[in-house]
């Protein structure tokens, strides 16, 4: 599904953001991406959704090779992904419903099918009642739910979330996290970058930790080795 092989990423200004990173995320997995600020979490996600070119190594995402993607393949790749950010990135002058519908319209979906699909995901994230609200009329947690609904409406096989709870209080954080778990339970893989170690400890999911651009811990690899090592 997502496979990094010996990936290096250097930014034109600045040093190496990723150094020899390799991992494989399977269909339907839930993975935490952790590490200190500046460790390279966002960079990993940017390589996945082809926002940045790969410097060297191979990045495969659901059949696409992100390392040598033609520019016109980028939108096709992104339609298979759902992406959620810390700052929500909603359009301020559109209602919740319109924000979600926007992601479908952009792909040229049939108009007749859009309204029903939008209502279905808004119901899934628990915001059906606020479909007509504008972002400024919604709380942070509610705005993030709209963003998640927008990410889900194209039925992606992977949901990428870059610190989705970074701007939320504890209650809203728990709600959004539970929503992501539900989404994962229904079969969608989730890759979530976060600093929130409480959240990470709470759930029995795979953890990939970065430190200054290097992968220093991957529970899927290290725990099985630990188990093999302990008698």
């Amino acid at each position, binding site marked *: 599904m997502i496979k990094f092989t010996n990936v290096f990423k250097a930014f034109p200004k600045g040093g190496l953001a990723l150094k020899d990173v390799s991992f494989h995320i399977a269909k339907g997995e839930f993975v935490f991406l952790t590490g200190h600020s500046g460790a390279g979490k966002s960079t990993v996600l940017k390589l996945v*959704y082809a926002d940045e070119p790969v410097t060297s190594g191979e990045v495969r995402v659901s059949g696409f090779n992100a390392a040598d993607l033609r*520019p*016109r393949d*980028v*939108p*096709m*790749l*992104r*339609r298979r992904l759902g*992406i959620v950010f810390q700052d929500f*990135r909603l*359009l301020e*002058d559109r209602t919740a419903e319109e924000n979600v519908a*926007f*992601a479908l*319209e*952009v*792909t*040229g979906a049939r*108009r007749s099918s859009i309204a029903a699909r939008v209502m279905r995901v808004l119901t899934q994230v628990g915001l059906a009642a606020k479909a007509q609200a504008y972002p400024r009329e919604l709380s942070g947690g509610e705005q993030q739910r709209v963003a998640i609904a*927008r990410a889900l409406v*194209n039925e992606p096989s992977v949901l990428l979330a870059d610190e989705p709870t970074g701007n939320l209080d504890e209650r809203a954080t728990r709600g959004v996290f539970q929503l992501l778990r539900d989404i994962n339970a229904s079969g969608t893989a989730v890759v979530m970058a976060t600093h929130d170690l409480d959240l990470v400890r709470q759930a029995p999911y795979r953890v990939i930790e970065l430190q200054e651009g290097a992968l220093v811990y991957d529970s899927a690899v290290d725990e099985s080795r630990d188990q093999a090592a302990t008698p």
Partner: protein
Amino acid sequence: MNLTIREALLAFRRAPLLSALSVTTIAFSLFVVGLFGLVAVNLQDALRGVAERVEIVAYLLPGTPIEPITLATKDIEAFPEVQSATYVSEDSALARARAELVEFRDVLQELERNPLPASIEVKLRPRFRDADHVNDVAERLRGFGFVDDVRFGRDWVEKLDRLRQVAAAVGLVVGAAFAVVAIIIIGTTIRMAVLQRSREIAIMRLVGATNGFIRRPFLLQGAIKGMLGGLVAIGLSYGAYTLINRWLIQASFFSNEQAVAIVGFGTLIGLFGSAASVGRHLRRV
């Protein structure tokens, strides 16, 4: 397609000020180009009017019998450059002088002998009304034995030639300069519109919009702005024309085709201006 139109129109509602600014700048740029066009159109008309009067007159020796003159007039009319050749007898020359020179009517009335020679008046076809052809025809007229003298405003014809060239050159240079300025200004206002919506464009790309999809509403919007600008420019030009006509000089306005061309030009500028701005923006991010 529906979606493109909806998004393009939505942009007018979301950013009415910027949209109005774009339309106004396009309108004024085209207005200046249009004013210059009006001057050119009227100058052309004036020059054509002047050129109309380019005439060569061959004065005949007194006492020439009428038959060779009639034959010669036919010959002259057969010259490829010549539009008409008219024989004016001594008597009709006098009659015309009496009619035209009212102040001297008494003097002319009292004449015992007609002092005016007979002549052949030659008019050239429009495209031969320049110094070279006029000289050429005059030379051929001198070849007739009974022609005493050939007259035409030599300086005048040459000046007309130069005026034509200058008018064409200045028209081309100034028109092109204003067109370039218009394109730059329009490109800038559309660039502002693009920057204002850069967040929206970023989000569109994130959810998988193709560049073509993102570009289309901007192109439509640019074309609409250009067209509106063109229409306003025609309106402004018409206002200016009306004022000039009433207070200054009798002038003529654009033909329908020229008006349509200006609106079309505005539309194209809007289209290409936005294509360039959006294209640059999409390549950069």
